[in-house]
């Protein structure tokens, strides 16, 4: 099974492990992730303002490419996923953004949100199946694991439709499948401080510290995330007291494909 894949800029630089272990694990599970041609950085954050058109075009380009190559686009970084899925929703449902973007792009046929955007975790759940992953596990995780959803996978839920935004469970199901003990803790869908790290580092640090403190109080040993910025913000304040890992790293370990 082959699937179009949008890696994003950070997975080519700071977060190469997130990418590398995703590909190795997918391969072991029978999925080939094929990097799409000439992708451009998604911009990191979804431009909310209705008159922001140019900043949405890199997502439209990737989506249009995927439309003509099987109709599906796989994402992994939570930020890319958020941006691309929300732009896709605009192209399907916002007439003004749709017509401006299409006018600018001059495609052979207009892009109207036809591509299905799917996150790596959704691919594991819906295309591979957590049961099949369970059978493929060689080294069960055997740790108390806290899933960290943050904001980007869940909100706004009207567009992201990833899971229940107030009480999600897909990452906990994933952790169970690879032999870990998922622990639900209240701050798993709280913000890590995000890009405010640059403008108001004290506020951002306070946010990530709250997450770590909360996870620790629940006896969690490892926090897993799919976002390089959450990873960075959380790891900075974790002080080695709690491990912070990418979802794909624990998966690759469990499948025995981590080099």
């Amino acid at each position: 099974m082959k699937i179009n894949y949008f890696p994003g800029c950070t997975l080519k630089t700071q977060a190469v492990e997130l990418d590398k272990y995703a590909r190795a694990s997918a391969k072991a599970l029978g999925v080939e992730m094929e990097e799409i041609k000439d992708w451009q950085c998604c911009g990191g954050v979804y431009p909310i303002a209705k008159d922001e058109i140019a900043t949405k075009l890199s997502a439209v380009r990737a989506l249009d490419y995927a439309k003509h190559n099987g109709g599906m686009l796989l994402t992994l970084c939570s930020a890319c996923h958020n941006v691309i899925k929300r732009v896709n929703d605009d192209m399907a449902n916002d007439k003004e953004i749709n017509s401006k973007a299409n006018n600018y792009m001059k495609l052979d046929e207009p892009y109207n949100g036809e591509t299905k955007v799917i996150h790596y975790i959704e691919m594991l759940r819906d295309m591979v199946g957590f049961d099949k992953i369970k059978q493929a596990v060689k080294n069960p995780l055997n740790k108390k694991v806290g899933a960290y959803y943050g904001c980007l996978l869940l909100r706004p839920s009207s567009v992201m439709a990833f899971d229940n935004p107030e009480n999600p469970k897909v990452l906990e199901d994933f952790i169970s499948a690879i032999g870990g003990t998922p622990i639900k803790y209240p701050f798993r869908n709280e913000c890590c401080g995000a890009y405010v790290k640059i403008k108001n580092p004290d506020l951002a640090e306070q946010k990530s510290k709250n997450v770590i403190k909360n996870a620790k109080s629940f006896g969690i040993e490892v926090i897993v995330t799919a976002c390089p910025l959450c990873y960075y913000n959380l790891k900075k304040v974790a002080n080695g007291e709690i491990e912070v890992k990418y979802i794909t790293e624990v998966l690759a370990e469990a499948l025995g494909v981590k080099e």
Partner: protein
Amino acid sequence: MVNKNELENINRISGTDVKKCMKCGKCSGRCPAFTEMDIKPHQFVSYLAQGKLDKLLNSKAIWNCLSCMACVERCPRGVAPANVIEAVRDTVARMQGKDGISANDIPPIVEELLPQQLLVSAFRKYKK
């Protein structure tokens, strides 16, 4: 003095209908940046409805909003306070010399593990 065009434009690019707000305060109650917001999320909505543009354009809160969308998720009336904040932030950042960050701010904070995503996101949010 209220600049009508600017007011209309902020309403338009926010894509949300502030008149639907019933002033329940749920958005502000959920906001993780609450303590750092000189104007609270529910006030962004009501100030915009009242045309209090000067207050909005001079707020510090626009630089502290995390775009976490928690306020949007909780609003029982389908209003999007985060969209209002972004519309105001964009309006300010598009003014000459009013960007929230400049390229000179970056070198001192760059360190080995800092992800590109952070820089790209901050520039998208704070500089136009």
